[in-house]
């Protein structure tokens, strides 16, 4: 707002030159490195999605051969899941905010933090290489024995790339857990932690416990391709369903790696833009942990038609329903937080509202897919595609963008342009629903996923979906443009443009290299807006 608040020295101008970035151990700079890297991966994944939606405008498979189409949806899934969604909120916002929110100078292991960025970079480059060299056509799920025996594409390259990126995720999770346990400022007890930290902590538990399992699974897949051992190959006595168990043991909880930190963002946004403490703070905090724990017990719901026993399917179905309980607790508590709040419709809040609506749709359709009878009908149809895009894109990406707008002033010291930003939130919300709602219908009436051609009666809904995708693309490019614009022309933000309570707002924007000029002492609950003086935002 005014130049007086602009600190003379901060982490961005503390040092210049490419080396000061590539060899930095400052968690804030590493957060920005992650931002650049995953934005790059996001646009690559988006390019594959564009090709997919172009192909599906017409019923005939006229743009791509079926082989190329297989590679397109595979690479779209791999890029988006492993190289964008999983690192998105934790590696960008979490990296930047976890030390600030606990009142520390850095994460517990700054060098390992930098290492984990390089691991994501190297893993991404190896995967990109396997794209350029000819692509992968197994689907992002690498189901055996197709991936191990029959596919003649670059499975090993992609598996190794994902394995390396997995270690990036493990190290990030490890760093968060140790930091939250050991580096909290004086007075910052567990129940004074912002909910963003609780949810990142829960996600970190999944990263640490789940990722090694998919790592060893991919090692076995690669070994099986190279050495022709038969652990997952039925022709050699192996068990392909075993692969599915091991893969989903990680990859279902991985959905919660994506969505838990996003829920943490939403808790922060709802609270600050309704000027109220989060309703039922402890319930929301423990709901995060409960989702992390239950999340490990539900992987079998991906395998209802894979020949698992009816009894285990029943148990997995029941447990999957149980995950809905803590998820619903969160949605109800956010709604209750709004009640009688002093609500302001700033951009981050619009994204938060978008998250709640779309996540609720994604969550409720998750109950359809968790129900044994219905799942048999909708397995491998567009219903499932729509369901998980509502969670991952409608949920995680909305919250990620909401968080980026909310903390942008802290990261850069500048405000984004409010009008354009509100427009982007609206465009994304509309574009998203137009893209993916028709896919629920398509799946329910029987259009299977992963085909490049389809019967003509599905065309109207597919054209709607492709039209929505182009609107969605505009919505994603808009923030790119005005964020860059704001770096130079945005208003100076001042330390606390939102009048928020978190520790990260008590230091300057952008923060100094060591975050705080004096180590803060915490004496209050988080979100204690009643104790703050009346008044709204500076910006």
């Amino acid at each position, binding site marked *: 707002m005014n130049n007086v608040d602009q600190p003379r020295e901060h982490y961005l101008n503390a040092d210049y030159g490419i080396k000061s970035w590539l060899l930095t151990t400052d968690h804030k700079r590493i957060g920005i490195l992650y931002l650049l890297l995953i934005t790059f991966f996001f646009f690559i994944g988006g390019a594959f999605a564009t090709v997919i939606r172009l192909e599906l405008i017409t019923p005939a498979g006229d743009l791509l051969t079926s082989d190329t189409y297989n590679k397109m949806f595979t690479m779209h899934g791999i890029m988006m899941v492993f190289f964008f969604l999983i690192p998105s909120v934790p590696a960008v916002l979490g990296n930047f905010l976890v030390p600030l929110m606990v009142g520390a100078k850095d994460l517990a292991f700054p060098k390992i933090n930098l290492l984990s960025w390089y691991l994501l970079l190297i893993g991404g480059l190896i995967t990109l290489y396997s794209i350029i060299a000819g692509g992968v056509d197994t689907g992002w799920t690498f189901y055996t024995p197709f991936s191990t025996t029959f596919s003649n594409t670059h499975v090993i390259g992609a598996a190794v790339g994902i394995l390396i990126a997995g270690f990036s995720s493990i190290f990030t999770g490890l760093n968060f857990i140790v930091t939250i346990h050991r580096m909290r400022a004086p007075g910052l007890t567990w129940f004074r932690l912002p909910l963003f930290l609780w949810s990142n902590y829960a996600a970190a538990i999944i990263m640490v*416990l789940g990722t090694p399992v998919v790592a060893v699974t991919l090692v076995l897949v690669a070994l099986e391709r190279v050495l022709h051992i038969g652990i997952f190959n039925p022709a050699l006595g192996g068990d392909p369903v075993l692969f599915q168990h091991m893969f989903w043991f990680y990859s279902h909880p991985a959905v919660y790696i994506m969505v838990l930190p996003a829920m943490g963002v939403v808790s922060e946004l709802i609270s600050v833009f309704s000027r109220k403490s989060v309703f039922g703070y402890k319930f929301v905090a423990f709901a995060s942990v409960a989702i992390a724990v239950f999340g490990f017990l539900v992987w079998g719901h991906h395998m209802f038609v894979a020949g698992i026993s009816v009894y285990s399917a029943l148990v997995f179905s029941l447990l999957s329903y149980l995950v809905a309980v803590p998820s619903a607790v969160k949605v109800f508590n956010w709604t209750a937080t709004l009640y009688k709040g002093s609500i302001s419709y700033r951009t981050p809040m619009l994204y938060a509202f978008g998250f709640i609506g779309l996540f609720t749709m994604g969550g409720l359709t998750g109950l359809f897919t968790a129900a044994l009878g219905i799942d048999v009908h909708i397995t491998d149809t567009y219903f499932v595609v729509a369901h998980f895009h509502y969670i991952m894109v409608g949920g995680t990406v909305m919250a990620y963008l909401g968080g980026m707008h909310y903390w942008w002033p802290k990261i850069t010291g500048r405000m984004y342009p409010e009008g354009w930003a509100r427009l982007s939130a609206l465009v994304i919300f509309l574009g998203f629903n137009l893209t993916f709602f028709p896919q629920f219908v398509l799946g329910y009436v029987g259009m299977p996923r992963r085909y490049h051609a389809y019967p003509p009666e599905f065309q109207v809904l597919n054209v709607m979906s492709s039209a929505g995708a182009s609107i969605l693309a505009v919505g994603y490019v808009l923030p790119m443009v005005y964020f860059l614009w704001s770096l130079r022309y945005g208003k100076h933000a001042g330390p606390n443009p939102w009048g928020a309570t978190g520790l990260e707002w008590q230091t300057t924007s952008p923060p100094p290299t060591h975050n705080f000029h004096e180590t803060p002492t915490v004496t209050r609950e988080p979100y204690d807006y009643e104790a703050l003086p009346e008044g709204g935002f500076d910006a």
Partner: protein
Amino acid sequence: MTHNESSVLQVPNLQSHFGDMAQQKESASFGMWLFLVTEIMFFGGVFCAYLVARLQHFTGFAAGSNHLDVVVGAINTAVLLTSSFTMVMAVHSAQVGRRRSIIFFLILTLLFGSAFLGIKGYEWHDHWEKHEVPGPAFHFDEPNIAASNAQLFFSFYFAMTGLHALHMVIGAGLLIWMIIKAYGGGITADYHSPVENVGLYWHFVDIVWIFLFPLLYLISRKH
């Protein structure tokens, strides 16, 4: 803050983002334990797959198991356990800050670890000679045993002992790093958590073997 920064200058091994040595040491050790948890999950995946396959193809696995040399395996187990003992002595020496005995015990640990890898290599070579390595040349001739099931056993055998050996090699690298560090006087009674944490890792890799040995060599052995 000025107070804090001057204390940074006084404590040579304290990284600037920690408040004091105790916090740094606790964080490092907590981080190592967490990392070992991830390792348990990593090996846990293969152990689980092994048990599933073993239940499905019990006779083949039992027959394959009988083709492992239990005497060599037992000797190797003893070698590895001895290396764990010398590691304990190295950690103890580090805690009391005796530079020469740290180096001595670390080198001993490295030697025992290398001996383990050497013996393991000998066993692998032996299987290669006997055409017990999975692949087109695999040969397994016993009445009433499907060769493919025995081959699956050997697939697991090589995958599991191979992953374990990879961890041993990484451990050997860490030991060399610690020997160099201790040689340069970098390990003292006040600052020895690197040796302690390498010790934790080394013991963990030993414990993995303590599970591998009975699973692969001992259970349902006929002779």
